[in-house]
């Protein structure tokens, strides 16, 4: 029959219960209708610029460049967006699309809470109801974001099943969607899940590389040599890579969470330790055991603590177009502190994984090379957890 849709090489597809099939077909049709609609795009651009504070700066990090003593480093400042991360890009797009589809209610999963906060924000702005699923473990390590979501009018459902982290929040949001489809849009937060989500989320996040490519050309008169981004499900990474994919000389590097190390069981480095499987609606790489049972992954970063990766990244890995490296908790925490001290920028612990790889790579590169690192979010939310990691107990 060969009717499978949304493939990235062998990855992607729509591995979901029959109950949801018409919902994703409806979403695909709506998206195909609106994606090239000038009015829709004008509305979205107004939201991006007028509400979310885009375009985000491409900042030349002279102190960081000097401190590492290698290539020239630019930071793409998604941390300066409204709500404090790149998540708002996708959420504004999906909420607007959902509204056009006549949906009145948004549900979402969240790990670190950034996507949940962004969804709650868009729901407040557009007058929609909002319910966010969040692993119980994450509600504890990201308590501030739970409060923010509630403040914005959303209800937060702590998920206790499985490992009570991001993967379980996704499963629970999918279960909820199968019970209530008519008025509800599932606002998925990453480039994962069944088609058309990986494509929709990528298109809304592609604004990152659309801007950064133009900004670096403006500043340097040429394209960068390296683009780095942290990668869990992979939404900020694909957004950071997308408009460079055809620029073959630009090296694309995704930085996964190695947790306590890729040779331990406490890791979330999917490409580095996983194998091809089928889960959460897609074929891609997953951390799993020999019988295909999904592994209980671990990272200090709630946002990267996920056993899979988006299907387009899986393809970019297979074709060798992008490289995926693993960064441990310890390296990420060091980078979190290093960027704070050298540039006065506190990055999200997720983004610190990309900074950590830059700290290894940049000193090995000649001074005329150019690197762009996406700072996907700001680190205020992580301060208490990092303090704890360093043995200091502070009240939030």
């Amino acid at each position, binding site marked *: 029959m060969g009717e499978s849709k949304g493939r990235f090489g062998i990855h992607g597809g729509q591995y979901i*219960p029959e*109950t949801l099939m018409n919902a994703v077909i409806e979403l695909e049709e709506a998206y195909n209708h609106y994606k090239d609609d000038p009015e829709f795009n004008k509305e979205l651009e107004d939201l991006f610029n007028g509400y979310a504070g885009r375009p985000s700066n491409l900042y030349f990090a002279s102190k960081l460049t000097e401190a590492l003593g290698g290539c020239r480093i630019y930071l793409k400042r998604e941390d300066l967006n409204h709500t404090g991360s790149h998540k708002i890009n996708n959420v504004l797009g999906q909420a607007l699309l959902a509204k056009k589809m006549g949906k009145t209610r948004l549900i979402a999963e969240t790990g670190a809470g950034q996507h949940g906060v962004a969804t709650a924000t868009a729901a407040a702005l557009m007058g929609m109801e909002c319910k966010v699923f969040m692993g119980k473990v994450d509600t504890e390590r990201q308590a501030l974001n739970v409060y923010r979501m509630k403040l914005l009018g959303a209800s937060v459902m702590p998920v206790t099943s*499985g490992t009570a982290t991001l993967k379980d929040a996704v499963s629970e949001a999918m279960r909820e969607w199968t019970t209530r489809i008519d008025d509800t849009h599932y606002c998925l937060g990453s480039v994962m899940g069944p088609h058309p989500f990986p494509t929709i989320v990528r298109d809304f996040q592609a604004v990152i590389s659309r801007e950064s490519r133009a900004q670096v050309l403006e500043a340097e008169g040429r394209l960068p040599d390296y683009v780095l981004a942290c990668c869990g499900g992979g939404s900020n990474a694909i957004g950071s890579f997308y408009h460079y994919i055809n620029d073959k000389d630009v090296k694309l590097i995704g930085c996964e969470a190695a947790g306590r190390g890729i040779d331990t069981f406490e890791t979330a480095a999917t490409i580095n330790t996983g194998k091809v*499987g089928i889960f*959460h609606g897609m074929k891609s790489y997953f951390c*799993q055991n020999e019988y*295909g*049972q999904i592994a209980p992954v671990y990272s200090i970063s709630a946002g990267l603590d996920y056993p899979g990766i988006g299907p387009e990244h899986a393809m970019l890995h297979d074709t060798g177009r992008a490289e995926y490296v693993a960064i441990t908790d310890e390296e990420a925490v060091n980078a979190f502190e290093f960027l704070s001290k050298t540039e006065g920028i506190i990055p999200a612990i997720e983004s610190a994984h990309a900074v950590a790889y830059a700290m290894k790579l940049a000193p090995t590169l000649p001074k005329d090379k150019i690197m762009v690192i996406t700072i996907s979010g700001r680190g205020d939310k992580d301060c208490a957890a990092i303090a704890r990691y360093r043995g200091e107990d502070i009240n939030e």
Partner: protein
Amino acid sequence: MSDISKAFINGKAFIPFITCGDPDLETTEECIVRMQKAGASMIELGIPFSDPTAEGPVIMEASIRALEAGATTDRIFDMAKRLRSERGVTIPMVFMTYANVVFSYGIERFCVKSKECGISGFILPDVPYEEKEEFASVMRGYGLDFVSLIAPTSEDRIAKIASSAEGFIYIVSSLGVTGVRSKINTDIPSLGRAVKSSANVPCAIGFGISTPEQAKEMSQHADGVIVGSAIVKLIAEHGKDAPSYVEDYVRSMVSAIT
């Protein structure tokens, strides 16, 4: 084509589901023997998956218990083989599990083992019509059936799913996940009619059915009734002593629909 049709030749079929390995495989094995004795027409053997996204809390928790107790795909194959060779189970058996359990084992290898163990087909709730051929094309080569599901939201998809269905059609009675429901709100008579008008194979209704009254009502609109969570709950409650309770329960359900 497999022997699944056998399950539907003596009137309405009663099809119980069991999570293999909860609380252990010996108990599962004994429960299946008793289910046949009590008049079950076919058994759905659930291979537990760590993250069963189509399941409600009852089967989800049973799956976790089974995995923690050491159930694996290979041990479940061994149990199925024993049921056929030593325990006298002759009614059709199908596996219900998730795509990754089959995919990671190797679809071909999974089919070879299933055939050896006397399994007739597969229900994979996360593999819809659009993705079915990846699995069904291999299964067909071994005379195994890929069972399709039809949901209350299937609407314009019913005809194409039903007309190409193999083995039997699993009609999902309600929106949402598996689990006991006090009331089923879907218009089952018209869903049943729509499925039957395009189907070349029998159809059975599942999701939310637990009482003999519900089973009797549902059986008016299909060729069989599937019950999962209610049985898994009995096993959760009685543990190793569950087989006799399961036998009594299955007998009461069978008599309600015949």
